[in-house]
């Protein structure tokens, strides 16, 4: 049965949440939304009803956060709590109803991004974990992992450096490139730490879009078929060294603590 990370919200009947909750995590500009755009029609073709959702898309708080960020005036604790409000609204009003109706919920980021950003900004990890401890545990968390050096060209040639994605509130400097580098390096370190703690499925996001898509598809297929988490999700103790018969497709889906398998 579905679980939360510790606290149960009122009226959240876990037994009813029969759908699948799949999280796509990763830093800014790594290609999460591109992948979700590809995944949705693919899932629908197979007959799954899909809800896709993401940070700041709540009816309640999405607009407020956007306005507040434009002014750059929110404190760190305040911003984290505003995001948590947005998340709670989406969890209760979008994600849980969809799971109740048997949907596949694809979420662009989840509590992990929110916690990583807060911790990088100096907030107490125990505090920020508690704030989000009402979150539902997903069926799988796919972490699109990329190094800063691979990330920079993507950002430069698409959206350019953004104030918040460069952590300018944290590393104010004349040089946005330097801030971006510092901030994203710190974020990636937090993600790597969480990859182990929360059992992320790590997917190397440096290859082309199609290769990443194939790897994600393979991982999601497994989740939807309800196949055992091994070998993709196995803990080191139970993991067999021999590759599984269909692991050819799964090279990217290595465990966080294993060195990345290059195809």
């Amino acid at each position: 049965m579905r679980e939360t990370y510790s606290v149960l919200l009122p009226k959240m009947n876990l037994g009813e949440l029969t759908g699948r909750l799949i999280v796509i995590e990763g830093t800014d500009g790594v290609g999460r939304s591109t992948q979700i755009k590809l995944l949705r029609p693919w899932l629908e073709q197979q007959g799954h009803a899909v809800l896709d959702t993401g940070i700041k898309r709540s009816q309640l708080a999405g607009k407020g956060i956007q306005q507040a960020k434009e002014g750059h005036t929110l404190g760190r604790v305040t911003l984290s709590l505003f995001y948590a409000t947005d998340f709670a609204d989406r969890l209760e009003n979008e994600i849980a109803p969809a799971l109740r109706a048997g949907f596949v919920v694809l979420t662009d980021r989840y509590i992990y991004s929110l916690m990583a950003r807060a911790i990088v900004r100096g907030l107490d990890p125990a505090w920020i974990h508690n704030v989000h401890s009402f979150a539902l545990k997903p069926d799988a968390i796919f972490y699109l992992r990329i190094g800063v050096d691979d990330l920079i060209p993507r950002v430069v040639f698409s959206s350019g450096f953004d104030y918040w994605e460069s952590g300018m509130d944290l590393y104010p400097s004349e040089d946005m490139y330097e801030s971006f580098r510092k901030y994203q390096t710190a974020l990636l370190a937090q993600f790597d730490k969480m990859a182990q703690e929360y059992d992320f499925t790590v997917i190397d996001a440096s290859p082309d879009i199609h290769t990443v898509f194939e790897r994600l598809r393979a991982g999601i297929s497994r989740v939807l078929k309800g196949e055992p988490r091994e070998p993709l999700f196995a803990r080191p103790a139970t993991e067999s060294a021999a590759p599984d018969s269909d692991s050819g497709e799964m090279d990217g889906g290595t465990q966080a603590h294993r060195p990345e398998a290059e195809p």
Partner: protein
Amino acid sequence: MKRYGEHRFPGKLFVVEGIDGSGKSTQLMLLHQWLQSEGYGVVFSEWNSSPLVRETTRRGKKKQTLTPATFSLIHATDFADRMEHNILPLLKAGAVVLCDRYIYTAFARDVVRGMDRKWVRELYNFAVKPTAAFYFRVPLEVAMKRILEGRSGVKFYEAGMDLGLDEDPEKSFHIFQGKILEEYESMIAEFDLTTVDATLPIEEQQAQMRQIVKAKLTQAKRLRVAP
């Protein structure tokens, strides 16, 4: 993140708590007047007043889409904004800060709405511990009488209508405030709240309050001379 707990800033923080109709706002207003006349730099900070978050809270309340979780979190967001941009800098600057409602209001309301007791307390652990927290203790019936005589009607969330306690707003309000009162009672010992008998004459309550505040303020002066 710094957990301020018992702060060491030069300013002082006094808060009033109690159910609706306990008379706490009146008492705080009188204290404010007195402190000003005594020459202190006093600033009043109201619950639920941050301009940045106000819009969102209003949207949720108007459309009645707030759940216990989002109700709790949006109020915590608002409080955090006031803490970071208002209360903390003022305490650092040496002001006397007065708050009508503080974290104890959130503890009482959110728990009555079904949020986890420990979770809510942890949520607010970025808050500064008040120099003194006055709890205006009043029997439910007395408070109800004061409230229902004084206003035209109670609002949806004020009456706890989101909890489905009763279809009649007045009855719902009654049940809801009763539950909040129970939460307050259990917090007196937990947070060392200074209890004031809110059925006493207004002047008498105010005299008690001033005496306690005065003691804390003179202490502060002495501390600043000899740390």
